[in-house]
């Protein structure tokens, strides 16, 4: 005979087991961004090409993508074709955050591969990226016209990202 009290420990055990096992399949390297729903952190830097001052307020007024990249970053060269592709659709502006790079290397890289960015924020020390909570390039932020972060993608972006994340926002 199974006593009704013995069901309790077993069920507790099973519930705990379930949570622990569901934890195993999660990717612990993906960290959600605390920035989502919050305004873009303030920054002031120079642009990569023209060396003009650029601040967070310069980007206000329209929805845009902020793509964190570096010429040293392999994932960035993988996603570059997609970013060129998105830019050719002319549906959304793309800004670049050149992360821990050297000016000449970054310019060289873009001259070879094409430049999809409207403007590029130069962040050689990586301090702006720290304010954005960047922990590895490439990362892509989707930011609305009021400068609020809507979405953050970690890793190279692809067609699915455009369809699932960007399109619904543009079509609104």
């Amino acid at each position, binding site marked *: 005979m199974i006593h009704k009290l013995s069901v309790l*420990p077993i069920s507790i055990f099973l519930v705990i087991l379930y949570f622990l096992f569901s934890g195993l399949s999660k990717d612990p390297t993906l960290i959600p961004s605390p920035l989502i729903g919050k305004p873009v952190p303030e920054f002031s830097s120079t642009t990569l090409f023209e060396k003009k001052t650029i601040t967070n307020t310069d980007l206000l007024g329209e929805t845009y993508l902020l793509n964190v990249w570096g010429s040293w970053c392999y994932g960035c060269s993988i996603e570059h074709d997609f970013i060129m592709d998105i830019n050719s659709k002319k549906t959304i502006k793309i800004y670049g955050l050149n992360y*821990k790079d050297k000016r000449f290397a970054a310019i060289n890289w873009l001259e070879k591969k094409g430049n999809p960015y409207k403007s590029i924020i130069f962040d050689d020390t990586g301090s702006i990226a720290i304010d954005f909570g960047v*922990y590895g390039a490439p990362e892509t932020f989707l930011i609305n016209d009021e400068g609020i972060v809507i979405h953050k993608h970690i890793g190279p972006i692809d067609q699915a990202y455009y369809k699932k994340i960007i399109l619904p926002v543009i079509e609104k």
Partner: protein
Amino acid sequence: MNRHIVFILILIFNISATYAENNNEYNKIIENLRCLVCQNQSLSESDSNLAKDLRSKVKSMLDSGKSEKEIYKFMSDRYTDYVLYNPPLKKSTFLLWYGPFLILVISIIFLIRFSGKSEKSSFKSKFVNNDNEKLKINSPKKNKKYFYLIAFLFIPVLTLSIYSYSSEYMRYKISYYFESKDPIIDITITIHNDILTNISGNEVLFVYARRSNGMRVPLAIDIFDVTKSKKNYNVRLDNTMSMIKAQTLASADEVIVEARISKHKKAMTMPGDFIGTSGAFKIKSSNYIMLKINSVVKEE
């Protein structure tokens, strides 16, 4: 004169004392912050670029007089509580902090209530069955009582042990065990003598596996610094070393392994790189190959 010396000594002592104090605080803070790109390492242990940047950020914040709390807040505002080794007590982390104790208390309450009841009932049976049959009736009840006693003692112990298993380190270990069936490739790389003489020590060695057909994206890649004198390298590539999530060793059937010494430290193959390529082989759960770096990449 003497007074001046004393004054200077006091000054030096003070500066070094505050420096040491600051340094202790610095060490403590970077011990308590997680490196985000390398699992199970704190900022103090990690050699990754991000960890270096965050360490220098902590240092500069300390130097500008920021408190430990302010630094933790700065980090968690940007990288969530995940960056903290001691997650703060909040609504969402309440169970994490007090869950095991809660379960312990609940089971103790159950234990006391239950054992009280069963004692009463066994008392009853003692009174009712005051004859030779007493033992026969009592013994299964007694057994049952011990069963529940053990069961209820067992729950908190089990919970606490599972709880400790759920720590990140153990989770890593467990997941490694489950994933250990994923393929690994062990590679012994030998650099040809003529190439070895051309090495200055500024190069890096890329070792990667890619599909024998189709995409050239590395399924697994590792990077080493090259030294003049080292002729052999032992490398293991596994499923965790991929660059894109879906493109891992496990996702391919036939791969080619390449070892390339790059002067430019570039991921792309450049003319002048020294390279060794394996033939295509079918990937098994455990693979061993030997690779010779014996050719030079020519101008395209």
